[in-house]
């Protein structure tokens, strides 16, 4: 019943292949520059955190943030363009592909883009002296689920958006704070308990924590909580996104 979603995925992959370079620079530029500026620049003046250099400390978190940016931006700007000006969704819905498959295809595609960005970031870490542990094999499916989560959130925004400006709310009030306050740049365990609680309410925190554990190969006792939060949130948000896209497209 839901099988045709991968035809939508294939369509997006075909288009992506044509603009692969611009697309990767767009998605990777920001986290990579942060890695350089903060890691090399600021990092030199900072002592070790949790037993690693500052650059090694922020590396795994930036992998998780690269996934977040790529996935959510694809289902915001990319999907919104296909929904409105290009009328691609309307064209697709005139075929046997139904609206649930369409939405799922968009989400899975954006998560795929997310994981491509995450993997490339991961591959650059050895250049900065961080050799990831074999546990990163377990990180890959978690990054994919993180991609599903942020792709779904982006698609929810698209289903509600009246214009491109609407995405500024989401980016400024949600994505940027997540980037800054999910423990990528400082150790949350060193903060006071209230801030620790707040940061656990941010979805990216769990992805950052998992990424760090699996990159260093230091698996903490709370890994099941992080994994569970990501799994539950990704499924729930995907479901909400599908419902909202259906409501927007089928009058």
């Amino acid at each position, binding site marked *: 019943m839901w099988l045709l979603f991968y*035809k939508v995925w294939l369509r997006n992959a075909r288009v992506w292949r044509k603009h692969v370079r611009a697309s990767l620079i767009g998605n990777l530029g920001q986290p990579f520059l942060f890695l350089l500026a903060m890691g090399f620049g600021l990092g030199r003046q900072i002592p070790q955190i949790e037993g690693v250099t500052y650059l090694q400390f922020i590396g795994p978190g930036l992998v998780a943030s690269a996934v977040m940016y790529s996935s959510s931006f694809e289902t915001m700007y990319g999907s919104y363009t296909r929904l409105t000006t290009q009328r691609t969704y309307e064209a697709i819905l005139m075929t046997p592909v139904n609206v649930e498959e369409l939405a799922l295809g968009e989400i899975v595609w954006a998560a795929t883009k997310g994981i491509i960005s995450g993997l490339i970031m991961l591959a650059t870490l050895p250049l900065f002296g961080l050799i990831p542990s074999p546990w990163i094999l377990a990180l890959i499916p978690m990054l994919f689920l993180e991609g599903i989560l942020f792709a779904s959130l982006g698609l929810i925004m698209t289903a509600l958006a009246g214009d491109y400006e609407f995405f500024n709310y989401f980016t400024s009030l949600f994505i940027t704070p997540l980037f800054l306050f999910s423990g990528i740049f400082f150790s949350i365990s060193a903060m006071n308990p209230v801030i620790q609680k707040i940061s656990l309410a941010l979805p990216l925190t769990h992805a950052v924590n998992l990424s760090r554990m699996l990159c260093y190969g230091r698996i903490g006792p709370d890994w099941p909580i992080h994994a569970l939060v990501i799994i539950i949130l990704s499924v729930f948000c995907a479901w909400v996104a599908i419902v909202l896209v259906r409501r927007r497209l089928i009058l």
Partner: protein
Amino acid sequence: MTLTAKPPLVEIRNLTKRFGNRVAVKDLDLCIYPGECLGLLGPNGAGKTTTIYMLLGLVRSTSGEISVFGESIPERLKQVKLRIGVAPQADNLDPDLTVYENLLVYAAYFGIDRSTAGKRADDLLGFFALKNRSDEIIQHLSGGQRRRLLLSRALINAPELLILDEPTIGLDPQARHLIWERLEDLRSQGTTMLLTSHYMEEVSRLTNRVLILDEGKIVAQGDPGEMVADMIGSEVFEVADSPEKLDVLEETLRSCKVDIERVADRLFIYSKEPCAELETMAISLRHVSKRPANLEDLFLKLTGRTLREN
């Protein structure tokens, strides 16, 4: 009328759609029989596109029943859409893909395998004179080429029912004639079609039965030629003159069997049978034109001359 002997391909009963307070379609009954080309006519906002969208499951009906190929909509939408081709009114070609890719990717949505899709795409690009544009990006195509590609795409799944929503809108006469020829070819091959259009010449040429919709309801239906003959007549005289002269003229034509319509400084005289006074008038007055009655006369008679979009 042998066409209507077979069971209908599309059967719509009591279909109603409300958007809030606005009634877009009201208690519509409609059948499309295998092999026919049904014309759906009506002013903008009459409910044509809404009806098509309900057929495709893009708009949910408020009440009523739709069945296509004997299958119920929206329950069996997926199965039904496999067998329908649509050329929508608003161009929704995929601008991220080339001409050829547009057809291949669309074929994939229907689950058509790659080699069949490639062969069909080649045939269709040939049929619609687009072969040398295969690798062109959509933005580089002219309006006529885009329309032809839209029609090619609608045929990629070898549909049993072809839905054409204003297929030649905004095209130059050359492009329009080419499309008409192709659609006539398809008709003669037995493809069933549903056509909406504002070009009455197009409707007269392609359809064998029309249905005129106004404010969501059917106001007339039948064979276009017969309807014009029955409801309008055979000939139309258009006279432009001063109001006084037109008054006098109206008076003299009392004895004739004609319908008269006055629009500003213009008199439309629809004649059902020959009349001596009319012929004399046509010779004596300078600003008079005589032409055969057509579908546009009927359309305007049934749906009025005022604009509808206000």
